[in-house]
């Protein structure tokens, strides 16, 4: 038990900023999605943040903070709606109220409209995910990553 106590106290001294982590958001390559022309489909984008890090929510309360933003290029498959999850709130030293953030594992959902005129075949829907990550002690520069979802359209 005493050793567990020592181990617990030693965790306090692990410097969270010991190594600069420039890639703290992991996104698996999106799986191909099947869709029928003339319907609406849902695409989930699972995201995983490195432990200790968070990104701002899609609606940060401070205008200087950079929101998490998913955008999709226009094309034959169009965006109907992007749904961000409910953020968790944090108490931070630099903002008076609770700060809405995302951390750990979370998903972004996009509803796409597949026009009836889209011919059968594979369509790549391209987009961009912009985020800016921090931990309790430091922030990393904003980053924009490319996202491509292959959609297999059938009649």
């Amino acid at each position: 038990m005493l050793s567990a106590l020592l181990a617990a106290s030693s965790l306090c001294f692990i410097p969270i900023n010991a190594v600069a982590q420039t890639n703290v958001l992991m996104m698996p390559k999106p799986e191909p999605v099947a869709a029928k022309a003339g319907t609406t489909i849902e695409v989930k984008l699972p995201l995983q943040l490195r432990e200790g890090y968070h990104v701002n929510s899609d609606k940060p309360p401070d205008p200087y903070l950079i929101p998490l933003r998913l955008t999709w290029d226009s094309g034959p498959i169009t965006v109907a709606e992007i749904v961000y999850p409910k953020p968790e709130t944090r108490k931070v030293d630099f903002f008076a109220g609770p700060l809405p953030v995302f951390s750990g594992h979370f998903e972004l959902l996009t509803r796409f409209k597949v026009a009836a005129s889209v011919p059968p075949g594979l369509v790549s829907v391209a987009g961009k995910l912009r985020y800016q990550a921090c931990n309790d002690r430091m922030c990393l520069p904003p980053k924009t990553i490319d996202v491509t979802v292959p959609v297999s359209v059938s009649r």
Partner: protein
Amino acid sequence: MDGQKLRQKLTVSSIRRWVLFAAAVTILASCEAPIPDNYHLKSANERKPTPDFALKDATGATVKLSDYKGKVVLLNFWATWCGPCKVEIPWFMDFQKTYKDRDFAVVGVSMDEDGWDAVKPYVEEKKMNYRVVLGNDQVSQLFGSVDSLPTTIVIDREGRIASTHVGLVAKATYQKEIEKLLEAPKDGPKTGAVRAAGSEFALLHSN
């Protein structure tokens, strides 16, 4: 051992276990709270010359780091979107006010991609009383690729890097370091100073 003694022993043992468990939980819960005091001034012979730069401030004036030779400088890389940087700014304003007559200066290097459009309103809103220049990738590279913000470099009177802090550290850390460096004699050794513009270091100009 009879049943009563055994029960007593078990009870004492369980209480002890719970107390230790509660202590461990308390230690872990307190981990996040304090901003660390990372005071670590390098000894004079370990300090390396600070790379120079020439960057523009909000008025368009060129600011060279080598112009600050003879002063203790707190060089802070920051950005408007960086929350922890926002915590430090009032501290640095306080240092600028307290030590400006003792050959000390704070220089803020903003790493905002959006340039003065983002930085100027912020500087005005926060009433920042020290010099702010707009940084760029070249300057970031000169200082070992500044990626995490805030990154703060404390420079001695001879233009040498006395300490580097990546991330938020306690105000007292900076205060102790500044005061220690200000104690050094004004006419210190001439070697190891900020490398002069146009000689062995790259003089960089911002756009």
